[in-house]
């Protein structure tokens, strides 16, 4: 793939129109008010038939899995078909368009239907998928995916303190999770913890449970105040002797490879970040070019100063690079593969740094106006910073890339 297809352009135009009419006028309320972003996400789902499309895809997949179960094998992923490039783009283009105004909405949406639903889809039983994943995929329900704890983020597996203890046929869960996207409002929570069977902490198995809002012993905090991404509510979860049946253990067995599944989620999450970065960079570049043309200093438009030109040129280089990364991602999704973790890390590292750098330069190019909330680059700059922190910090991406280089 070397350029957007006709279908991609149509999706982009339709999304752009939605963003301009439904999000842009409500940006103030979404970013600085108390309204969570879920109504607008649901409106997007129904307007574009995304809920029905998700349901149809889900049903096809479940039918394949049931058939495979009967034959005693594992469901095979479909082969590449004509139109797969368009379908793959359909997943990324809405992210790009939304991020031009509201990276927070993408985070809230991506964590729910991406991370949370995917965790259930990759490890759950068919019954668990139907019960919990489907309502997340159609955005009927809001999901949260909880691994980070006050004492462990980058070292999520090693430092994890949350526990599950066997209790008859079920388990008792305890622990605190923090920085959890959608935590304050989630209906469905994927909770990752370690099986406390008396063995050494480092030898304990990782288990993943699905919780529902309102279960006894589960507390969801109010949204935390933060630097940016205000339209994505982030909170803490407190579990105090939460009793669960085995049907809430993903896969309904202690022996499903929890760690491998979680790593696959990381890889997908990182791919999404490149699309987010492209949206931020496109918008900053567009606003900056306009401003450079019209803002006059020393008797000429600031775009005539070479130092300003350098900023614009760098923004364009970043935009081209990110777009090419997205094209490669679309190719890979379309051919039914996924990026390996090292490449996903490289893309995420580049994308996060490019978005941050471009957004900072945009603020600089706007001068005092750049620092004022009225000019959108201020918000995009605060929002861009999170790309270097969540889904694995820059430092963690770097060490993963290096580790894969040195492994051979």
């Amino acid at each position: 793939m070397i350029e957007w297809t006709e279908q991609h352009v149509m999706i982009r135009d339709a999304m752009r129109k939605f963003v301009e009419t439904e999000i842009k006028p409500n940006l103030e309320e979404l970013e600085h008010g108390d309204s969570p972003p879920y109504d607008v996400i649901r409106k997007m789902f129904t307007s574009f038939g995304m809920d029905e499309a998700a349901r149809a895809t889900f049903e096809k997949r479940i039918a394949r899995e049931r058939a495979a179960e009967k034959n005693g094998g594992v469901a095979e992923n479909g082969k590449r078909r004509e139109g797969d490039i368009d379908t793959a783009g359909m997943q990324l283009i809405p992210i790009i368009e939304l991020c031009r105004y509201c990276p927070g909405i993408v985070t809230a949406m991506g964590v729910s239907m991406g991370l949370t639903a995917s965790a259930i889809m990759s490890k759950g039983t068919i019954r668990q998928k139907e019960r919990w994943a489907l309502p997340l995929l159609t955005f009927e329900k809001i999901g949260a995916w909880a691994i980070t704890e006050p004492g462990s983020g980058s070292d999520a597996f090693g430092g994890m303190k949350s526990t599950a203890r066997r209790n008859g046929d079920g388990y008792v869960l305890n622990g605190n999770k923090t920085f959890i996207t959608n935590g304050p409002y989630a209906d469905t929570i994927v909770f990752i913890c370690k099986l406390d069977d008396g063995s050494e902490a480092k030898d304990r198995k990782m288990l993943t449970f699905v919780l529902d809002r309102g279960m006894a012993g589960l507390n969801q905090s109010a949204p935390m105040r933060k630097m940016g991404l205000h339209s994505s509510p982030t909170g803490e979860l407190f579990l105090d002797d939460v009793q669960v049946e085995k049907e809430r253990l993903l896969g309904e067995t202690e022996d499903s490879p929890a760690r491998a599944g979680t790593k696959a989620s990381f890889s997908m999450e990182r791919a999404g970040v490149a699309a987010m970065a492209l949206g931020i960079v496109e918008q900053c570049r567009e606003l900056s070019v306009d401003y450079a043309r019209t803002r006059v200093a020393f008797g000429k438009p600031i775009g005539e100063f070479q130092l300003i030109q350098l900023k614009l040129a760098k923004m364009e280089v970043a935009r081209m690079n990110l777009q090419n990364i997205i094209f490669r991602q679309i190719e890979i999704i379309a051919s039914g593969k996924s990026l390996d973790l090292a490449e996903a890390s490289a893309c995420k590292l580049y994308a996060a740094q490019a978005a941050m750098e471009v957004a900072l330069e945009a603020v600089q190019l706007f001068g005092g106006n750049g620092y004022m909330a009225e000019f959108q680059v201020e918000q995009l700059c605060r929002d861009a910073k999170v790309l270097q922190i969540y889904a694995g910090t820059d430092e963690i991406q770097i060490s993963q890339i290096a580790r894969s280089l040195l492994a051979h």
Partner: protein
Amino acid sequence: MKILVTVKRVPDPETSIKVKPDGTGIVTDNIKWVVNPFDEIGVEEALRIKEKVAGSEVVLVSIGDKVAQEQLRTGLAMGADRAILVLADDLDPLGVARVLAKLVDDEKPDLIIMGKQAIDDDSNAVGQMLAELLGWPQGTFASQIELSDDQKSASVTREVDGGLETLSFPLPGVITADLRLNEPRYASLPGIMKARKKELKEIPVADLGVDVTPRVTITKMEPPPSREAGKIVASVEELVNLLHTEAKVI
């Protein structure tokens, strides 16, 4: 029931339009093109009828350059069934109405829905001319359309000066859509995917055997006069004085 809907490719109302220095037209580089907003309302209305009346078909028609395919695809993505693109340059309203009348002969629709006007040249003429050429009843500037249960007649509420007027007439007929008729849907993502596979037939205008010699020619275009910078005055007296002596409004 079969509904024919027109879809014209026009510059996005949000784009700033520049007139060519020689006044022969507008600068078309870097312009974003969209479906004429009134036509989009027409497509939406046709789709709503299709959702109510089982077995209906919505056929889109555009007349113009090959690139108007994009706008037809948008209409197909919204849910129309198929599209016809008549390839022709620079027709005047009567030429367009004649081409449409010929297509109506071939397609035999029960209803034609069009935008009340295209937002590029704002002629507001084709709907009326087409009804006349066909000898069909017309309901222009519709803000509400109701079909009888047997779909043999339509009742159209029109926005006229000072109020609303309701007309009833037998079908087939021509209806032109006003702004408040409905709010068009977004093309859904599955709709966009399906649009690619729907029929889009191209017909060179010469194949239709219709006389489209323009009777109207555009002699010159010019931009509206640009606004001059305002003036800041020091006192109410000075303002009143200037309004009297300079602006001559009091």
